[in-house]
């Protein structure tokens, strides 16, 4: 109790300096938390991937389609429970700015593969009955104000023309991590239109989504599917949904790595500021440390007092920073809209923020603590600060 009072008094001696340092730590911890959240949301797609879903695509690259006939052959592979297919549509809603993913899906088989997309059964029925219908996620609907019954026009970039869809259902995620910024419509609608406009591109699909009976069979089923189409005009590459999503992350890895490096840089910057504050404090108090030593305080105790002060300042600033991370991240997530489907502060992020604050506090106390411990009483007393 006595020590606590001493430490608090010490910390508050230079109120302005302490306040500034705390504010600096607040900003740094907040920035650190936001950057970690950005990095995590980058990986969000792969974290939510199901272990019993596989994705089969053309082995050359995603721009090449697969024939529709592959579906029946994949269904015969042992271990395959469900097969559905989807095409990336890549349409533009009003302007290029409004990016959100759109897929043409084989609706009756696709939706059962994704139980995490929740919507009322009557809406699903309405969607299945209307060929021009589409399903949108809650987040997407909120961003653009889509309501059931609205008509949404998309300008095709891959598939020429302007396409119109009627919103028949809005899905909610099973939990906060479910991506609700997607847009689904009937593959049949796309295909029937292509038969008329670009017949050579009809009857092709972008990817097959495969539901397998057991997660353990993923490797053998993937290999079996790829073996089926070896040496054909369209060789396939089958991987788990997670690997498929991670492939996208890997392509933009340089950016993720840069953000990660920068998130650690901010901790270094604040470490320099905090260390400066503590070094200054120690310099001014050399005479006091000498006095305390003369009174019988050992070096370990002095180090403890200095470290406690440093940690106290760091933690106080960090706690405010962590508390502020949540509302700021929410605001940020709302601003970014559908660019990051899932944007929330995770437990790991908070733990890392606490860890970073502890590290800053301890490192900043190292030099002054060391100096106080090594101090000769006579030199210290002679020091006038």
């Amino acid at each position, binding site marked *: 109790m006595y020590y606590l009072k001493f430490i608090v008094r010490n910390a508050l001696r230079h109120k302005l300096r302490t306040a500034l340092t705390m504010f600096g730590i607040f900003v740094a911890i907040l920035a650190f938390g936001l950057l970690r959240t950005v990095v995590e949301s980058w990986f969000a797609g792969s974290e939510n991937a199901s272990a019993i879903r596989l994705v089969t695509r053309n082995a050359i690259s995603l721009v090449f389609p697969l024939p529709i006939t592959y579906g029946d052959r994949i269904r015969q592979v042992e271990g395959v429970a469900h097969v559905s297919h989807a095409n990336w549509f890549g349409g533009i809603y009003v302007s290029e700015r409004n990016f959100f993913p759109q897929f043409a899906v084989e609706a009756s088989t696709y939706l059962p593969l994704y139980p995490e997309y929740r919507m009322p059964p009557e809406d699903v029925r309405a969607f299945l009955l209307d060929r021009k219908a589409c399903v949108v996620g809650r987040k997407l609907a909120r961003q653009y104000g889509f309501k059931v019954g609205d008509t949404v026009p998309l300008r095709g970039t891959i598939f020429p023309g302007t396409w119109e869809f009627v919103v028949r259902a809005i899905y909610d995620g099973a939990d906060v991590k479910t991506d609700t910024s997607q847009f689904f419509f009937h593959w049949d609608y796309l295909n029937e239109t292509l038969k008329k406009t670009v017949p050579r591109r009809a009857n092709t699909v972008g990817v097959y989504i495969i539901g397998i009976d057991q997660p353990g069979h993923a490797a053998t089923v993937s290999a079996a599917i790829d073996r089926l189409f070896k040496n054909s005009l369209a060789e396939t590459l089958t991987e788990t949904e997670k690997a498929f999503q991670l492939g996208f992350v890997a392509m933009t890895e340089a950016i993720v790595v840069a953000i990660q490096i920068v998130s650690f*840089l901010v901790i270094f910057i*604040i470490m320099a500021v905090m260390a400066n504050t503590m070094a200054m404090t120690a310099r001014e108090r050399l005479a006091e440390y000498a006095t305390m030593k003369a009174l019988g305080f050992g070096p370990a105790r002095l180090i403890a007092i200095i470290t406690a002060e440093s940690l106290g300042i760091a933690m106080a600033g960090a706690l405010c920073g962590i508390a502020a991370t949540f509302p700021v991240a929410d605001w940020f997530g709302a601003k970014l809209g559908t660019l990051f489907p899932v944007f929330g502060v995770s437990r790991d992020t908070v733990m890392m923020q606490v860890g970073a604050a502890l590290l800053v506090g301890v490192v900043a106390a190292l030099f002054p603590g060391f100096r106080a411990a090594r101090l000769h009483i006579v030199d210290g007393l002679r020091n006038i600060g």
Partner: protein
Amino acid sequence: MAIPFSYTAKNLSARKMTTALTAAGMALVVFVFATVLMLQEGLRKTLVDTGSADNVVVTRRSSGTEVQSGIDRVQAAIVSSQPEIAYGPDGQSLVSKEMVVLITLQKRDSDKPSNVIIRGLDARGRQLRPQVHIVQGRMFRPGSSEIIAGKGIAERFRGAGVGEQLRFGMRDWVVVGTFDAGKSGFDSEIWGDVDQLMQAFRRPVYSSVIFKLNDPQRFDALKLRLESDPRLTLEAKRESVFYAEQSEVLSNFIGYLGLTLSVIFSIGATIGAMITMYASVASRTAEIGTLRALGFRRGRILTVFLAEALLLGLVGGIAGITLASFMQFLSISTMNWQSFAELAFSFTLNPVIISKSLAFALCMGLVGGFLPALRASRLNIVDALRAA
């Protein structure tokens, strides 16, 4: 009379630890600031060098990228017979019908997959890009399963070096050469014979038609004619504009992220400078009183402390820029969202970035030093002298 500059400089060197820590914090912020600008500049330069203002790229309307575009042979023939197209020295028109697709390749070091642009063209296509030179091996022979890889691809992707093979479209393709495209976007591409590649990919349509104008002024008239021709569903863009648009999203992303980070980080570093300067003022109260008693005016005191803060910023700025200049040895490669393909670019430092970064550092020093300097200049002579 002014207080000599050496007073300011010596004050900073009197407390090395504090000065070093404060300057180090600022240096890191300047480093981040400069790096982001360098990255943006590198990206811009890469794409500016890729496109030429005399060349025109024709793609399918609203496809945005070559990969998404498709031009059938009839339409391509119409485009290639336009009167604005320049002739080469051999009397042939400088027009190239090209096919652009993406293939997935594995990186050499990590095995991670990435999309790479593969472009089918002929000898005309090469003439349209004078910046491209073969640096190793030779050009592919027309009508063969040979390909050449850009420098950026040959180094980083498995099977893309000279003498190695890539397998796609039921064929093995031999890499017979590596080309250097002068740090342009073509460095991140693989080139092969257009007819062979179209055959292999079973793709009956071209992706784009590229040609050189005989008179750059005639672009607008040509664009109008091509885009209003009912037989064509195409759009024409100057090559320079086309490539600038390709990287718009990525460039904006880097810019916004960098600006936000720099602002947030600079708050931290400015606070560091402020703490240091307040301490500097506090420990020199008696000194300031003496100076004032000697007859130096408040304005002089203000200047001297501001100069000290600016000097601190300058030291941090120079350290940060020095640190950032080493980044020029690195190049970064990432997926360009718009083209969905790998693009390599490097950090590029230029005088504008150096001056911007220095100005940024000085600003941090100025903002951090202003309040402490103001306090110093407002000290009462008697109180200040008594502080000793």
